[in-house]
């Protein structure tokens, strides 16, 4: 167990190095001079050369990467000239909003998907199964910004239940916070529901055919109890994995949703930094997001192993 975790962590080192290197190269190698971006298009050649010297942009790229990485490891991700703010504190201030809407969206997805999948497992191929299957199909084919616009149209313009923009901090006003993130969370939750439902349904139908379900039924356990106690529990492992792996792709969704609903999250920060050509900030956000994704995937791996003892046999 501990050996497994340690081995995973060791495997992560090259990936984390690669992730930081790629993020660094993306921002530094591609056309678009950082000094020019800071000084604006009217800057004189001497001023650009001076700033390049000052920022250390004349050194070889690998040296600059190592220099940057050394600072990053101590928590210094640089200074955003555009925002006049240090990079890391700005990101850390924005990140909780992103995490909140992602977690709420995932919660909505799970709360909806579990009872639906149980109902379907009791009567596979029934009308409910077909209906939910169709709904899931529709949800998966709907880009998030389109769904968000539809929700704005319905819940803010027509019924005026929830605001379409604005954000209230969780620590200032908890109910106001929920009110302000309701539509963003639903926008994320609908697609998550569709994905979770499809995975859970497939997994449950597969488990239904297993001998242990037959044994449970033979002992006289009711179909509902058999599904809840035996099928759902065994299928939940797959769901946990899907939820965890889904975190990375969901950051993409959060970028769109934060931009659409004007939420002050990390995605909104990324998009605005790109608009303002704030390369240092873009680099910081991209690195923090990617490292978070890698770490979440590690936790998912470990959770997967803890939940399903059978995996010991292959990896132990």
């Amino acid at each position, binding site marked *: 167990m501990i050996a497994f975790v340690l081995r995973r962590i060791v495997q992560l080192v090259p990936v984390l190095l690669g992730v930081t290197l790629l993020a660094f190269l993306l921002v530094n190698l591609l056309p678009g001079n950082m000094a020019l971006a800071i000084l604006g298009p009217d800057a004189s050649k001497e001023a650009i050369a001076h700033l390049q010297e000052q920022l250390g942009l004349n050194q070889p790229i690998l040296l600059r990467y190592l220099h940057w990485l050394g600072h990053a490891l101590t928590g210094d991700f640089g200074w955003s000239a555009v925002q006049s703010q240090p990079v890391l504190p700005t990101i850390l201030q924005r990140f909780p909003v992103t995490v909140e809407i992602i977690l709420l969206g995932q919660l909505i997805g799970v709360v909806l998907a579990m009872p639906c999948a149980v109902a379907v497992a009791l009567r596979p191929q029934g009308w409910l199964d077909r209906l939910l299957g169709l709904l899931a199909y529709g949800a998966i084919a709907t880009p998030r910004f389109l769904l968000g616009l539809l929700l704005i149209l319905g819940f803010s313009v027509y019924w005026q239940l929830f605001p379409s923009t604005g954000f209230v901090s969780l620590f200032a006003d908890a109910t106001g916070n929920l009110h302000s993130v309701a539509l963003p969370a639903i926008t994320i939750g609908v697609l998550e529901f569709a994905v979770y439902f499809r995975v859970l349904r497939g997994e449950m139908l597969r488990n239904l055919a297993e001998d242990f379900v037959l044994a449970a039924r033979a002992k006289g356990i009711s179909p509902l109890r058999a599904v809840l106690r035996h099928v759902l529990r065994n299928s939940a492992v797959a769901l946990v994995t899907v939820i965890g792996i889904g975190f990375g792709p969901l950051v993409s969704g959060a970028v769109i949703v934060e931009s659409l609903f004007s939420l002050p999250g990390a995605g909104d920060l990324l998009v605005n930094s*790109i608009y303002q050509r704030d390369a240092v900030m*873009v680099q910081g956000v991209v690195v923090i997001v990617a490292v978070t994704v890698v770490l979440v995937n590690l936790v998912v791996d470990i959770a997967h192993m803890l939940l399903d003892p059978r995996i010991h046999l292959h990896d132990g």
Partner: protein
Amino acid sequence: MTARQALEELPRRLSLRLREGTETWLWGTVLVLIAAGCYLGPFVLPLANPEATDFANALAPIGTPGHWLGTDALGRDLMSRCLHGGRVSLTVSLGAVALGLVVGGTLGIIAGYRGGTVDAVISRCLDVLFAFPGLVLALTVASYLGPSVRNVTLAIAFYTVPAYARMARAGALRVREQNFVRAAQMFGGRGWYVGTRHILPNVLFLILTYAFVLIGIAMVIEAGLSFLGLGVPPPQPSWGQLIAMGKQDISDAPHIALVPGAFLFVTIAAFNRLGDILQGRHV
């Protein structure tokens, strides 16, 4: 299965086949119509110029004679704009998936078939790329390359290449263990020969059907980029950009956003459904 059982099963299986067949044709026709409308429509149909403003008919609703899908705030014909916009969306997603298929597919087959150090190196590189959420990577790449059809395609390829590589690698790993591959190797077949003659044909179906699913995802990323204003720039319209423009008038004239939204939705749904049917994953 006995002959009798097979005979009894036959009507059910046939109806299933038929249903799949009808659905395949249905979605296939939808896609062909949309593609034909986007690529040929502007030459064949009596469409207005997508940029031509007509303030007398601004914000016309769906069903207005002459503007069957309505007009936007500047009186531009939505039908014409959607068909022109579809070109960008389709070209970029098809291009990105084609790049993914060739580059990612090759890398994946090499990694899966060769194994060992080659596989380890390629796999770690893929892990690195997978750590970046698709849209985040595409946003960063697109913003630094500058907006154009070619650059947006390249930016989305940063997602499709690793996705394809993972798929092809898994396929190649499965095929590698089969006896006919072992036999070919024992007869002295070299890597290139075995790879192209035995591995590739056996993962080709998997790879081609996966394209349908991936095109759907690529379209969502492209539309997201355009929606954020970092896709192919105006005046060239794209579906995501049209939806973003319709956002301002969502309360007065929701059709401006919803008409291109419907085009996008139907196209993605058609690609997804066809992909699922072809992979035999459908319900």
